[in-house]
């Protein structure tokens, strides 16, 4: 099993062999983000910025005007909070072609604790115009997404990750920006997940299957722009929906999906995510258990949303009829 950050470093180094258009910027966390792998292979294309993320973001904007494509790398908590105003005003507003790649997402960060557990990055990035958000679910998808992200003309926030992850996809996967991918088909309930939670959602779907509940499972790896069409179609088909993210319950994937539903076909929906609190230092699995991010939590949410769907169908409430 590879970690997403390792996969990111390897993918950068691999891609750099065939294209010489990009450089990687680091804020003294190369070992943490996986870019040390790239640095060893392409030291001349690695720009050390020191522990100065704010300067780094604006420097990247400047670099992008000189015929080079900068990939800024750091931990998500700094990319999404400490230096976010630089991302907004130096990169997003002037629409410079800069990519921001961040590791250390959510409670998956584990023992480093709440200061380093970015639980707000989706909420923050989602609210800034001109930025695309990509959050692959496994090393294969990350590998496939990277060239697409680099070819996209405009700022992109790319999430990697910290913990080792098994592969979900094989080499036949094609990554399409702006599209959610149905990775399991089913009719009773739709589960939409992102990042590390896609793995837990697969386990949840297996468990539900054993109870006779059939799930459609979607990997929503582009969080912005969100795949409205797929959300609406899935809601219409299943009549209820569960979202799962290792992110605060406010402003992330669940919010994005709820916004679409509220404006189209509001069906019963449940969100699995961090319940608007700061967690603690621990092994990521222990954190997932204590803060309700396990497959069983997705199963509970699915059962609950199915009950609501059934009640609404019985009473006729909430169907608009």
């Amino acid at each position, binding site marked *: 099993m590879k970690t997403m950050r390792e996969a990111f470093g390897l993918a950068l180094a691999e891609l750099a062999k065939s294209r010489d258009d990009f*450089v990687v910027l680091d804020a003294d966390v190369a070992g943490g983000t996986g870019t040390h792998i790239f640095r060893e292979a392409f030291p001349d294309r690695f*720009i050390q*910025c*020191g522990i*100065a993320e*704010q*300067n*780094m*973001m*604006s*420097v*990247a*904007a*400047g*670099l*992008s*005007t*000189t*015929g*080079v494509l*900068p990939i800024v790398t750091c931990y998500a908590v700094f990319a999404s909070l400490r230096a976010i*105003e*630089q991302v907004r*005003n*130096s990169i997003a*507003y*002037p*629409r410079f072609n800069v990519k921001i790649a961040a590791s250390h997402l959510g409670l998956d960060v584990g023992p480093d604790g709440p200061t380093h557990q970015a639980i707000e990055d989706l909420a923050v990035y989602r609210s800034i115009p001109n930025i695309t958000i990509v959050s692959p679910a496994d090393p294969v998808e990350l590998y496939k997404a990277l060239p697409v992200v680099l070819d996209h003309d405009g700022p992109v926030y790319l999430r990697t990750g910290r913990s080792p992850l098994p592969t979900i996809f094989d080499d036949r996967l094609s990554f399409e920006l702006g599209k959610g991918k149905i990775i399991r088909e089913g009719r009773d309930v739709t589960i939409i997940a992102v990042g590390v939670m896609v793995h837990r959602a697969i386990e949840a779907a297996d468990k539900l299957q054993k109870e006779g509940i059939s799930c459609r499972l979607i990997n929503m790896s582009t969080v912005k722009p969100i795949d409205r069409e797929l959300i609406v179609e899935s809601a219409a088909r299943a009549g209820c929906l569960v979202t799962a993210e290792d992110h605060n319950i406010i402003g992330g994937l669940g919010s994005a999906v709820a916004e679409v539903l509220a404006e189209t076909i509001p069906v019963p929906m449940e969100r699995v995510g961090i319940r608007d609190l700061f967690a603690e230092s621990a092994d990521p699995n222990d954190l997932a258990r204590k803060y309700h991010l396990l497959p069983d939590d997705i199963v509970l949410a699915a059962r609950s949303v199915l009950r609501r769907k059934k009640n609404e169908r019985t009473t006729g409430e909430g169907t608009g009829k």
Partner: protein
Amino acid sequence: MDKDEKEQLERLAAELRKYIVIMNCYAGSGHPGGALSAADIVAYLFHKELNFSPANYQDPNRDRFILSKGHSCMVLYAALAQKGFFSTEEFKKLRRIDGMLQGHPDRLKTPGVEFSSGSLGQGFSFALGVALGGKRAGLDFRVYVLLGDGELNEGQVWEGFMFGAHYRLDNLVAIIDYNKFQSDDLTSNITSLEPLHDKLASFGWQVVEINGHDFLDLEQAFSQARKTKGKPSVIVAHTVKGKGISFMENNPKWHGSLAPVGAERHRALRECGCEDLRL
């Protein structure tokens, strides 16, 4: 610099000040104090130093002027209009709906604007990125970035001073418009910058201190910066906030955002040689 050149620069700088006052009156708001203090520096840069004009402004080899103190954009708009990037008619739409001249510079709306500055500190770091990119690409353009003194309160600026020295960006010159005032008060009453020269030198930069209203000083400082190799240069330009409009000089009220009205408007227009403006 001979006497004719000096007089020509004085005329061009006076015209920049006139444009600033006119724009400010049209808009009814804006930041006149820091635009006026930088007018001589900007006049020198645009007419003597920069290889930058409407003919080459998309050429990768052009020199870059980056206004990091974005709130002083009226001086940049004045210089760009003077150089023919757009008509002075645009002044009438400054800060107004559908205008190309925003309250702070917008690179996507205004031709000749390199960076959408306004959030202090960011233009400086952007300029460092441009200078580093130029060196990496083997391009020989030079980068000029104008900062405010109050802007030096921002931590990002000091991250940038470390970065610039580390990468030996001798193709970059930072100019500090040291007019001694920031938004609310004297810089020395907010969080004092002194000893500024020593601070900058200790960060590894070549430091030159000049009178920012003296074209001979400016000529000497920029020429020295060109000769400095292996480290970036910073010019500490001592200036007068509101320079040229008597009642705005050294008065923090005229930092902004505001414009003169009534008798003050007439006086400002008269002092910059524009008595017939109909608003």
